């Protein structure tokens, strides 16, 4: 805080480095804002602002809150960029308070205009009954609904094991999850929008996707390709067909790449939504993004650029026009041997952390809560 105050004394940005904006009819109210260890460091003609913002929010609604997404903007710093901080897997009863922390760092010229450095707006709140409040500028409704469905799916899986095999079975299942995540192949991925500027692009070719299919999926990928040049994959285009009788609002295709040794990695996801994406019942539409992914091995694995030998896609999420969301079930993911490749759901990640810090008994108590 002292650093921020010092910066303000220089007359550089503002007296209010962070501004929290909650709508008057918001189901959440702001109890307190704590700037904790926030500080400023001068680097030549630039300053680095480390903001450590602790918010305490109050659930003023009659429903239990399952997730919150806050839109964070620093318009003067990155005109084309925005950020969000989401807290899923919550279980906040009416009239309860809960914390949300925002840690961000801005590197910017020392001399810039006034006004708040960072503005925080509420983008969405998801409740226990899947009802939603908020402007949803960041597709928070779909994202948080999918996270909540994944949480229900994974909690059910571990609860079933607990009921059938007790604490020992739960412990075994947790160890398997932890091992899977420890051995999950990972890549260093960088994302850039638009066409890259390079003089050493190498041979560029269009590579086709292979697709995994899940039983009961409402949308199937039928054809797709992306441009490959060196370790860069860009402009994915995937044709999807709506097998259901309902209109689909958005689709997210998960994107895996294979190296020359046949090892598979998660590269990212290819979402499609918005008014230009119109997928009526029985129709086919195209998922496309004008983005480039740069794939390299992790620094502790040599950090070499990844030679992309193949690409695989599968449907990760489908959101219908009524706001309901479809996700693959755990059995389908296990049958396709994807559990060892996909990152865990936020809830599974939280449960693993709880098990690691507090043991199987605390985990069982958590699972028995709801």
């Amino acid at each position, binding site marked *: 805080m002292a650093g921020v105050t010092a910066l303000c004394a220089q007359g550089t940005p503002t007296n209010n480095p962070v501004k929290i904006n909650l709508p008057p009819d918001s189901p959440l109210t702001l109890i307190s804002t704590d700037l904790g260890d926030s500080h400023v460091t001068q680097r030549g003609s630039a300053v680095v602002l480390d903001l450590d913002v602790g918010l305490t929010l109050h659930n003023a609604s009659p429903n239990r809150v399952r997730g919150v997404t806050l839109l964070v903007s620093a318009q003067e710093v990155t005109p*084309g960029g*925005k950020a969000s901080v*989401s807290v899923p897997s919550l279980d906040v009863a009416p009239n309860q308070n809960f914390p949300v922390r925002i840690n961000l760092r801005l590197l910017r010229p020392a001399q810039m205009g006034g006004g708040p450095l960072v503005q925080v707006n509420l983008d969405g709140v998801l409740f226990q009954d899947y009802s939603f409040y908020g402007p949803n500028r960041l597709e928070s409704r779909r994202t948080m609904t999918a996270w909540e469905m994944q949480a229900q799916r994974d909690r059910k899986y571990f609860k079933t094991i607990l009921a059938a095999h007790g604490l020992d079975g739960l412990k075994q299942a947790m160890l398997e999850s932890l091992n899977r995540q420890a051995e999950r192949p990972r890549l260093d991925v960088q994302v*850039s929008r638009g066409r*890259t500027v390079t003089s050493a692009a190498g041979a560029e070719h269009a590579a086709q996707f292979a697709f995994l299919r899940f039983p009961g999926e409402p949308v199937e990928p039928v054809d797709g390709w992306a441009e490959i040049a060196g370790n860069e994959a860009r402009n994915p285009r995937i044709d999807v067909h709506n097998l259901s009788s309902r209109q689909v609002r958005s689709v997210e295709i998960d994107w895996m790449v294979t190296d020359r040794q046949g090892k598979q990695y998660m590269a990212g*996801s290819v*979402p499609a939504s918005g008014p230009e994406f119109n997928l009526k019942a029985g129709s086919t539409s195209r998922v496309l*993004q004008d983005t480039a992914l740069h794939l390299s091995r992790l620094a502790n694995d040599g950090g070499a*650029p990844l030679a992309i030998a193949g690409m695989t896609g599968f449907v990760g999420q489908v959101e219908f026009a009524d706001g309901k969301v479809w996700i693959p079930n755990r059995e389908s993911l296990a049958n396709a041997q994807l559990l060892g490749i996909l990152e865990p759901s936020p809830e599974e990640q*939280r449960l693993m952390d709880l098990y690691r810090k507090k043991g199987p008994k605390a985990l069982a108590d958590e699972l028995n809560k709801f």
Partner: protein
Amino acid sequence: MTHPDQTTLALYAGQDLGWFTRVRTRRHLAGCGECRDAVLAFASARDNLVALCELPALSWSRMAIEMKANIRLGLAAGECVRRERSAGRLDLFGIFSGARTLAACGSVMALLTAGLFLERPTPPALPAMAADGAVLRATANGIELNQGGQTWSLLHVRSSDVTYSAGAQGSMRAGYVDSDTGNITINNLYVQ
């Protein structure tokens, strides 16, 4: 009396001598019958040679047709001989037969493939720099948006166990459990 040599007489017969030698030779011929006969013999032989060099009237079109026909015939004959050679036992030219050439090429290809596999060439690392200079990446303690020399990072200072995922719409996500609150927190950066 000194006689001109035979070369001089032959050149005189062909009127190919220089002026001074021609005058001197003419003066000698006026008094030497033997050399005059030799000059007449050279002149006669020369006339016969010119006559021999004259070609009879030829039909060039007909000759061209015949030449093409002969070339085709030669090629066809060559094909017959090649088939016969490849079907038969190995002979002197067998070392260049299709099977051996194929085997040699295959060996070279296998050697090159093994070399490439052992070397495992990596593709060129393309700079992750878009035309507008906006790049999203994961760093040691967060996710970062770099645009126009300015940087914006969302940090996960209270956890070391982080999952990252990239979105092809231009986003980067980091999920971690905040050790202070115990809540899973998911940071997202978007570039437009």
